[in-house]
């Protein structure tokens, strides 16, 4: 089955990419943009979803700085 993993900086972690996007948007005329966080989207096909958390913790995300969530999409 196909799984979608979303990895994002943990709350409170400095996110320079998010900051850069946040300051770029008003420059393009998009006002009223609040906090921006930039993460990673990983899609993978797996046979066993019971290993998903382990996969995320060990490789796909770095638990020191990132949090993750995943969902089966098909």
């Amino acid at each position, binding site marked *: 089955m196909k799984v979608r993993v979303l990895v994002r900086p943990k709350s409170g*972690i*400095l996110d*320079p*990419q998010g900051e*850069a996007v946040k300051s770029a948007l008003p420059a393009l005329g998009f006002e009223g943009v609040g906090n921006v966080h930039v993460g990673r989207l990983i899609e993978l096909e797996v046979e066993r979803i019971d290993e998903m958390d382990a996969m995320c913790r060990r*490789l*796909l995300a*770095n638990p*020191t*700085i990132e949090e993750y969530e995943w969902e089966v999409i098909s």
Partner: protein
Amino acid sequence: MRIGVAIFPGSNCDRDALFAVEQMGADPVELWHADADLKAVDAVIVPGGFSYGDYLRPGAIARFAKVMGPLEEFARAGGPVLGICNGFQVLTEAHLLPGALLRNIDMRFVCRRVRVRVESTETPWTSGCESGEELMLPVAHNEGNYFADEATLKELEDEGRVVLRYLKNPNGSANDIAGVCNEGRNVVGIMPHPERVSDPVLGSEKGLKILRSVLVGARI
């Protein structure tokens, strides 16, 4: 003394590290990522570069390379290990060192010479320096912004495990940290590149002070 240099696909300071090992008067040994063999070395340098293209996160894939098995054992048994730049990132991903290295705060790669202060000489890689000594060392990285949670930072500071500190922070690192060591003090990770200033023709030999420490201070 035999000093191993781990080589991952995408490492690009491996040859520089091997050359610097020769400069410091030790025997350089290549440790190929796919060989689970440390070849009986006395110390290991994990060099800089972009192992596995820095894809996913810097160091995230390299930490699972075959050579990392014996390397982790070596480190946990007290063997001296130095991670330089990408090597530092690999060691944090492998949990041999605490914390993580985030994107530089201004989102730009930074290559310049920076002044750092030696905060601890009680590691095999700084024992040849004076405590409080200031060194001008080159940095070159995209992700050098050291992060650890408050408790970890406090622990590092309290236990004197901040090894190098920037005088002028080039990347947003917490507490201006440029290098740390593990609890056992044998594993050190630093962002600056001592191997790039280990030759008089390059204008400085300051880096040899760090690298040569291991020749005298292998046992702390």
